[in-house]
C-alpha cells in the first residue's frame, strides 16, 4: 500500500506520520499514537463511540480518512482533561452517573464539549439533538442529560477545574 507523509495536531501536539492516505483517523489515533481512549463501536458512523473534534467540529473518526485530517487540529478524550484535573464535563459525568460501562463515554464527552461550545446554555431539545449521534446502551441517557446541564452551569460559573 502506498504511503504519504501527513502532519496534523493532536491534543495540541504536532504529529508527523507516514501513512496510507485512506487509513482511518480512528486507527491512526489508536494504533499509531496509542490514544486508545477513542473507541470503535460499529465502524460505520452510527454509534459515535469514536467521536473526536476535528477543527472544532464533531466527527466520527472511523469515517475520516487520514488524508482528510491532514493539517487539521484534533481533540481526543486524552486532550479534554486529566485524571487529576478533570474538565467540568468529565466531572459532571462522574458526579451525575453519566458513565456506566464507559465505552461510549469518551465520544459522549466530546459530543458534550462540542454542544456546549455551540450552545453554552443548551435547551433540552438542543441537548437531545446534540447527542443524537452518540449511542449509549446503559444509561437511557437521563444521567447524561443531567451531566450536560450540570457541566453547562459549572462552565458558566467559571469552575474550569
Amino acid at each position, binding site marked *: 500500500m502506498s504511503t504519504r507523509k501527513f502532519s496534523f495536531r493532536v491534543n495540541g501536539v504536532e504529529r508527523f506520520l507516514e501513512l496510507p492516505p485512506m487509513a482511518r483517523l480512528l486507527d491512526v489515533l489508536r494504533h499509531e499514537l496509542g490514544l486508545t481512549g477513542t473507541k470503535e463501536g460499529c465502524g460505520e458512523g452510527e454509534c459515535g463511540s469514536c467521536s473526536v473534534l476535528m477543527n472544532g467540529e464533531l466527527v466520527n473518526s472511523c469515517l475520516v480518512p487520514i488524508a482528510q485530517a491532514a493539517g487539521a487540529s484534533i481533540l481526543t478524550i486524552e486532550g479534554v482533561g486529566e485524571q487529576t484535573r478533570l474538565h467540568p464535563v468529565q466531572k459532571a459525568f462522574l458526579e451525575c452517573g453519566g458513565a456506566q460501562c464507559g465505552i461510549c463515554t469518551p465520544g459522549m464527552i466530546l459530543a458534550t464539549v462540542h454542544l456546549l461550545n455551540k450552545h453554552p446554555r443548551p435547551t433540552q431539545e438542543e441537548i437531545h439533538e446534540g447527542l443524537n449521534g452518540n449511542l449509549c446502551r446503559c*444509561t437511557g441517557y437521563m444521567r447524561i442529560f443531567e451531566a450536560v446541564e450540570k457541566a453547562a452551569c459549572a462552565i458558566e460559573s467559571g469552575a474550569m477545574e
Partner: protein
Amino acid sequence: MQKERIVGKPVFRKEGVAKVCGAARYIDDFSMPEMIFGATVRSAVPRGRIVNIEFGPGIPWDEFTVVTAKDIPGKNYIALINQDWPCLADGFVNHPQEPILLLAHPDRHLLPLAVAALRIEYEELPSVHSIEESESQQTIVWGEDNIFKSYVMEKGDVDEAFAQPDIVIVEGEYSTGAQEHLYIENNGAIAAYSESDGVTLWGSLQCPFYAHKSLLGVTGLPEDKVRVIQVETGGAFGGKEDYPSMIAAHAVLLAMKSGRPVKIIYDRMEDMAATTKRHPSRARHRTAVTKNGKLLAADIDFCLDGGAYSTLSSTVLSRGTIHSGGPYYWPNIRVRSKAFATNTPPHGAFRGFGAPQSLFATERHMDRVAKAVGLTPEEFRRRNLLRTGETTCTGQAICQQINLEGWMERALDHAGYYEKKARYDRENTDSLRRKGIGLAVFLHGAGFTGSGERYLNSLVGMDATTEGRVRVLVSSTEFGQGTNTILCQVAAETLGIDYEAVEMAPADTSVVPNSGPTVASRTTMVVGGLVHSAALGLKQTLIASGLLSEPYTTAAFQNAAKSYIAKHGALCSMSRYEAPPNVYWDDQKYSGEAYAAYSWAAYVAEVTVELTTYSVTVDDFVALQEVGRVLNPVLARGQIEGGVAQGIGYALYEKVVWDRGLMVNNQMTNYIMPTSQDLPPIRVFFEEIPFEYGAYGAKGIGELPMDGPAPAILNAIAHATGEDFNAIPLVPEDIAERLATRAPIAKEMAAA
C-alpha cells in the same frame, strides 16, 4: 441503629475517573509483544454436512495458523448446562454463523480476505426456523423431539376451576421477538500460552469462571494451568455471560497452535450475526375470572425459541415459567412450558432472562381480562394483586410487607393517570394524534432460581495489602452496573473505614474465589451479603488480635492491618453462601420458594400514535419500584433508566430480521435502538423496604426494569387506538397493516 455513612449515598463510581478520561482499558486497547490476530470462519447454511473445505487461491496460506475441530486437545464443547454446544463444528453445522475453522495471522487486514477465500461446500439438510415448525416435529433437528426442556408448574385444580358455572373465560396469544444486546463494545479476547504457565485469557466478559470451566474442557489442561482475567467490559446485559466462553476457547486454541498471543475482536456485523440474542417467545393464556373480576384460574402455554443448541435455554425457560403468573394471587394456575430447538444461532442470556417475555404476555392479557369483565385495568389489578401472606404460583408465601395496590396508586398519581385517561378518551375521537396511557405491574425474582444459589455455593474473600489497603475478592464483574462501587461501599461501611480505602482485586481466576456468575440480579443482594460477612470477619480478626479497638479511624485500621500482616504473614477473611432459613424448593414439582426475594414495580407509559405515519412515541414514563434498600441512589436510578430505555427499544424499535436463521439487519444502521431523541423523561421512584437477608437490606435491581416497559406501552397503545396489539416489537408497519383497513379511521384519514 447506627446511621450509615457510605451505604445509601451517591458515592462516585470506583472506576469512574478512568472512564471519563478514556483511561479505562478495554480488551481492544491491549496489545502484547508478538501478538497476532484471529478470525472465525463460519457456516453459510442453516443446517448441513460439511463435504469439502478448500483453501482458495491468492492467499499465503503457509503464513496462517489454521485450527479445526481436529486440533482441539480436549473436548469439543463449550461447557454450560449440557455438553451439546460445539466449540468448532466437526463435519456438521446446525445454524448459520456456526464456527467451523479458525485463522490467525500477524496482519489483521489480511484476515477478512483469507476468510472470504475459504470455500466450504455443504450438503444442505432441512432446517426449522420458528417455534411452530419445531413444535410440528416434521423435521427433527435436536434430540428426539426438538425440545430442550419442558416444565409443568401447577397450583390448585385448574380443570375444576374452568368447569365452574358463571365464569368468564378470556383467551389470548402473545409473542415477543429476538432482541440484540447491542453493548457498544463488541466481543473480544486475547489468549497467551506457554508450556510452563499454561493458558491465560483476557476478555470482555461477565463470568470469569464460566470461561475457565470451558477452557478446562477444551484444552484438557489442569485447573492451575488455566487463568481467566476480565478486563474493563463495555456493556454486557447478559450477552457476555455465555458467548465469551466460545471466543475464549477460539483465542486459546489459536494461541496454543501458533505459540503466540492471539487477539480476536469481533466487528459489529459479526457480533450481531453470530452471538446470542434474547429468546423469541410465544405465550397462550386462558384465564377463568368471576364476573366481578376475581381471578380464578390460569392455563398458560409458554414457549421459547432456543436456537440450535441448548446453552442456557432451560434456565431462561424456568424463570419465564415462574414469572408467568405476574404479581397476582392465583388460587389455581398451570403453566406448561417448552424450549424448542431451531436452526438459528443459540439464543442466550439477556437482562430479565425469560421474565420480560412471559410478563409481556401476562400484563397485556390482564388488560384484556379487565375489559372482558367491564373493569378498568387498575381496578381489575386492585382486586387481584398479591398481598402479604398470600402465595405465588409456586406456592411461596409472601412474607415481606408489600403494598402493591398502594405502590400502583402512587405510580398512577405520579403519571397523572386518571386525569389524562379521561382527557384522552374525550379528545381522541376527532384527532389524528391518538394519545393513550397504560400500566404494568410486575415482579422480578432476585438471585438464582430455586436451589440455584445453593448449588453455586459462592465464596467471597477480603484481604489487606502490606500497605493496609483492603481488597474485595470476588469473581463478580463490573460492566457498567456498578459492582465495584456497591461492593466497596458495603465493605467500607462494614469495616468502618473510608470508601477510598477499599478496592476491588482484579477479576482474575488466579486471584479471586468463585463468587458465582455476575447475572440474575444477584450481585448486590447475594454477593453483597457475603462481602458484608467477610468484612465482619476481617474486622473481628483485627479486634480479637488486640491490634485494633473501637472507635478507630481509617488510618488506625490500616496500621492495625499492616501490623497484623507483619506478625502473621497475611490478613484474609472468607465467607461462603448459606441459604436463608426455611427455604424449600422442589425441582420436580416446581413448587416452593422460587426466589429468596422479589422486587416489585408499577410502570406507567404515556404514548402518542400518529395516524398519518403510524409511528408511536412514548411521551412520559413513570417507573416506581420496591427493590429493598437502595445502596447508591445515582447508580440505582441509572439501572432503572437504562433498563426502561432497553424496554422501550424492545417494544417499539428493535426488530431482528431473519432469513433462514440468519440475522440480515446486523448493523446499527438497520437494527434501531433508542437515541437521545427517542426517549421520554424516565421518572424513577423508589419504595424502600429493607430485605433482611440482603446486603444492608438490598434486593436485586438490574433486570427488573426490563420487564415492565413493553406491556405498559402496548397497553397504552390499546388505550390510544382501541386495538389490541399482542406482539412485539410493534413497528409502524404492523400498526398500519391493522389500522389502515379499519373503516372509521380510514374515513377520518380521507376527510383529513
